[in-house]
């Protein structure tokens, strides 16, 4: 369990002072109001949603456990006696609702682990309830959903309906894109020195490259990478995030605050990263520490807050593998196979960005 302060209540942000005054003139009224609140909460105590702050974690847990048992027994009841199934289902649904509300109301006083496990069991129960409902009265629940959808969404449907063919308009977007980019090249060596002529922090995009070598010197604020095949990238510090999507048989050498890797296959990453890199829908990706040099990179790294190696290059989170054992989708590059530090000082700008 992690009693991390980040989830603690309280915390007054810069520029957000709680208003303390306005309590005195209304004191009498307040007392009345408080008494009423007390009565109300007493009345609702039977339904097991009393105020969370009166009872600490253990009280919440026992109440939650009791509610969970109630929900589970209602669910099993609707399986064992099909005649009373609708009633049991409704009971189960309301018990699950109560549980969810309980968890939500206690959310700020609960440690993260308890909250997470509480929410996980709520969603498990929901799934079980849905399953039971579909077994028992598949038609009814289905038609009910249809109906409410039909009345609710006619106005929102038109904008979302033309979604499936989204692949078409994308190129037109790309065509009018501002900012710096290398796009749609084959077999080229692309070099850009971001330290020249860059008055404001910019982003950089690399898209649709095949068999290219890319050298970016200097720092940038954000880097977007999309659809690369057989490319080698050597990139200066990114003092923001890097977003990588759909790359195959590439090598990346980069330093950044955040790195997200989607749909990468057979690709090596040499990283220095302040937070944990993540992968999603990847296979055969490998990681090693950052290994890049050019004249002035120390200053660029320092200015980007990336002067020290946190070791996070090896702490990869795989969103498709949420288990304790090592994900089969990624590995570390064995030391004997790693690239030597690459010095790109001598590489001169050959291609200007478009």
């Amino acid at each position, binding site marked *: 369990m992690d009693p991390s302060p980040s989830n603690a209540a309280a915390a007054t942000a810069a520029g957000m002072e*709680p*208003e303390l005054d306005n309590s005195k003139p209304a004191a009498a009224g307040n007392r009345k109001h408080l008494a009423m609140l007390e009565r109300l909460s007493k009345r609702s105590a039977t339904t097991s949603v009393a105020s969370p702050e009166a009872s600490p974690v253990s009280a919440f847990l026992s109440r939650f456990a009791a509610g969970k048992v109630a929900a589970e027994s209602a669910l099993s009841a609707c399986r064992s006696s099909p005649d009373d199934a609708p009633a049991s289902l409704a009971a189960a649904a309301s018990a699950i609702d109560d549980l969810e509300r309980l968890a939500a109301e206690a959310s700020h006083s609960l440690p993260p682990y308890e909250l997470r496990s509480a929410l996980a069991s709520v969603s498990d129960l929901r799934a079980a309830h849905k399953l039971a409902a579909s077994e028992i009265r598949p038609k009814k629940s289905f038609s009910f959903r249809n109906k409410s959808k039909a009345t609710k969404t006619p106005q929102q449907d038109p904008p979302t309906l033309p979604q499936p063919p989204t692949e078409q308009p994308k190129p037109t977007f790309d065509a009018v894109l501002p900012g710096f980019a290398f796009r749609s090249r084959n077999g080229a060596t692309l070099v850009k020195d971001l330290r020249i002529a860059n008055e404001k922090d*910019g982003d950089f*995009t690399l898209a649709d490259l095949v068999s290219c070598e890319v050298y970016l010197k200097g720092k940038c604020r954000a880097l977007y990478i999309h659809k690369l095949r057989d490319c080698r990238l050597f990139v200066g510090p990114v003092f923001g995030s890097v977003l990588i999507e759909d790359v195959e048989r590439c090598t990346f050498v980069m330093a950044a605050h955040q790195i997200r890797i989607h749909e990468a296959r057979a690709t090596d990453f040499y990283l220095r990263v302040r*937070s944990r890199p993540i992968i*999603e829908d990847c296979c055969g990706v490998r990681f090693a520490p950052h290994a890049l040099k050019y004249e002035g990179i120390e200053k660029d790294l320092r200015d980007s807050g990336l002067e020290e190696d946190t070791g996070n290059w090896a702490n990869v989170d795989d969103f498709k593998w949420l288990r304790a054992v090592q994900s089969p989708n990624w590995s570390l590059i064995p030391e004997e196979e790693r690239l030597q530090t690459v010095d790109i000082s001598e590489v001169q700008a050959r291609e200007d960005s478009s």
Partner: protein
Amino acid sequence: MGLLSIIRKIKRKEKEMRILMVGLDNSGKTTIVLKINGEDTSVISPTLGFNIKTIQYQKYSLNIWDVGGQKTIRSYWRNYFEQTDGLVWVVDSSDVRRLDDCRAELHNLLKEERLAGASLLVFANKQDIQGALKPAEIAKVLNLAAMDKDRHWKIVGCSAYTGDGLLQGFDWLVQDVASRIYVLD
């Protein structure tokens, strides 16, 4: 809003609001929450799951649910819809390529019945980046005008990196939610 939910709000001792932050991955949700809370934003890992923050804001206590935006975990967003008073949709204004995805996910979300009453604040984040689209352009691409009739919404340009625009956005959201659910004061 039904009578039941009015009663529920009165019952609470503190004036609480439940705010749900969602948006595609890499849009800056966690950074916004930490920035507004005055915390260090330089080491933030992509959110695996969710974070909850309780922030005192004016006379309200905001329960902010910051839910991870990676594709794999977007399907879990619906677990957080219940009792949401304010919805914050965060857009990476410099990620033009994925704006279509962004619009599709947003409209998908807004179909959800449990969010029907929630006010919508759209943060056009990363305005400090040179190539970022302006809030008006984002509003157009996301087709926000289409919901003029059935929802309170506002788009605010911001930068979680510098902090610009964040308070302006939350001011609007809190006022709008308050005027809806605390009508009895």
